[in-house]
């Protein structure tokens, strides 16, 4: 199963968990499952519209496919100058 990694500020919405294994063939499916486990977490992950999947950061990754052993790091919106 892919692993969802939560940055410290997000852990308060997941009973303090930092790494959660959840089913999902896409990042979006993982978010749905995470929200089922921890109601409200999905909204926070959607507000955070970037994710690092296997080391590469993607903006709005809802439909990004994830491998069964993928590590997905949820990141709040990133910006630059």
């Amino acid at each position, binding site marked *: 199963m892919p692993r969802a990694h939560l940055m410290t500020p997000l852990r308060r919405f997941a009973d303090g968990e930092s790494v959660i294994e959840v089913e999902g063939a896409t990042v979006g499916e993982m978010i749905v499952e995470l929200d089922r486990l921890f109601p409200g977490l999905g909204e926070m992950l959607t507000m955070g519209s970037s994710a*690092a999947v296997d080391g*590469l950061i993607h*903006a709005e990754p809802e439909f990004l496919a994830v491998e069964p052993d993928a590590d997905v*790091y949820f990141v*709040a919106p990133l910006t*630059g*100058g």
Partner: protein
Amino acid sequence: MTITEDRPAYKWVGTRPIRHDGYDKVVGKARFAADRNFPGQLHGAFLRSPHGHARILAIDTAAAEVMPGVKAVVTGADFPDLPVGNPERDTGINLMARDAALYVGHVVAAVAASTRAEAEAAAAAIEVRYELLPVVLSIDESMADGAPLANPDNRTAFSGSDDPSNLATVTPLERGDVDAAFEAADVVVEREFDTAWVHQGYIEPHACVVDVGPDGRADVWASSQGHFRVRSQTAAVLDWDTARIKVTPAEIGGGFGGKTTIYLEPVAALLSEKSGRPVKIVMTRDEVLRATGPAPASKSRIRIAATNDGELTAIDGWIGYAVGCTNDMAGFVGAMSVASYKFPNLKMEFVGALTNTPRSAAYRAPSAPQAAFAIESVIDEIAQALDMDPIELRLKNAVVEGDLTSMGGPHPRVGFVECLEAIRDSEHYRSSVPEGAARGIGTGFWFNIGEQSSATVNLNEDGTATVITGSPDIGGSRASMALMAAEELGIDVHRITPVVADTESVGFTDVTEGSRATFATGMAVVNACRELVEELKARAATILGVGADAVEWVDGAAVAADKDPLPLAGITAKAKGTGGPLTVTASLNAGGAGPSFAVHCCDVVVDDETGRVEVLRYTTAQDAGTAIHPSYVEGQMQGGTAQGIGWALNEEYVYDDDGTMLNASFLDYRVPVASDLPMIETIIVEVPNPAHPYGVRGVGETGIVPPMATIANAVSRATGVRLSSLPMSPPKVLAALDER
């Protein structure tokens, strides 16, 4: 000088052709937004709040509306009230106050008149009744128990709370056991730091012309880092359909993050709609400094633990950013910047706090310079305490591929070690420190972003090409697009015309920020060219009478066995007969922007009598991945460094107790000029980004991250006293010397 890993041999990538936009800029033909003028055009001017925080009780525009030349007046009442939570609500409120003025300079009303003087006179005649409210001007004031709200609209992002708050974001980061690490440490250094608000200092003030026709469609000419964002933000703020608005990008006279948002266009649009005439608004320098986004001021406490052999075992600290009058991600983004060292134990908190000052904006690598100033200063003190070479200490702890980033994931392939080695081995670092001077080292990291880009490549009938993108060229991206297209197509770079097209002539493209244009838009150009080459091969097969699989593309020509090479121009000449125009569009949402590191080295002398710091020599090494046009990369490195030197030594907003900026001109807000700076030497390090076809990493932002710490470390070594407050202006240096 360039230090390069093994890579393919390129014909065009990595060369230094004359820039495509160079001629127009040299002879004055380049057209900036303020250069646009239209028949019947009106001029806009603003009435701005003289108060740092005040409820607006009433606005009387009657006298202004009948003054000579006046054609339209708008106030907050003319704008839709977007709901709390709408992402552009704050943008709209920042460009036109509604119930309250949130800082000195906040726009309260605007006038369009036949001349600028008439518009200014009418704006001054508008009467506003205010109820003064408490003004919040610092992080301490903002976070104090019982502090008045700087903006009652604000909610703390990602908190789940709906309570009004002065906190924009609170971002904790934690890993390992910090307490145990500090207990076991051989050396611990702890310090507090502060930095001032600083402006991006672009030479060209914000400007636009907007013409709303009788059909309600708006033509916008604007100076910005992203005309698609100008369109989307203008549409959102006015609650208009996006399709009503066309934005044509002007040449841009500097942005550095400060032109990633809008201040003028919706106001000009409403004035134009009311008057039925084009409306032009050009900010004065005073308005730019008083009312457009500075980089946040900051305050921090950093404690770092180390072993006697130089292993950095833990970092613990707090960094606060004064983000201005509306919510901002500065505090959160700052948390992303602690990614240069392994630190097995880490406990940090990053906070954004609202103040009654202008809404802050990005400045190159937003929030990272403030964090790097504090952290790199403490690391330098640890090197001194351990009597270690500052580069060797950093090399011992520098992240490499697989080490953790701030957000928790592993770094991809990065070039931090290579940059440290480049400075260590440089002639500058190996040279003796000049008599009476001292040397400082500092480093910086920025993650860069990808996002959406589009490109259209048209081949013309004579074999020349036009490369059309939607990325405003703020740092040489047109030349880079042409170079990558030349490499792909195999034609001379000057047979390619790179164009930045309006919002109706090219696919959607995100704003030029996050060092993304050459990375992401360049990737769209490469994809379009590669698809075009496949089409060229198919057309060539038709012309040559061979199977499609028999054709290869070699150095700008179709090559098939037993046939003479067919150059690109020979194929485009027969386009009509082989299927029509040769054109391809590619769009993408680019993932995998490569993180970038920089290492700086400088020599300074400090005048004991005046406190003036003179930078004698400065060298910067930065990982560019692959430098598409090395001159532009060097320019970015030098530009970021020059701005960082200003941030370090002179630049600061000076406010009085009511929040009025006292130095709103370039005479008093002191940016460095050429005579203040040495030649900034550059070493381009090339560790290709595996996620880009040419290995590109963004280079526009990282250069501003290290200078403040680099100079502070040199000054501290020169004086024997640690400078922890920016800017290190002569009065502060003298005060520090007195305390020595």
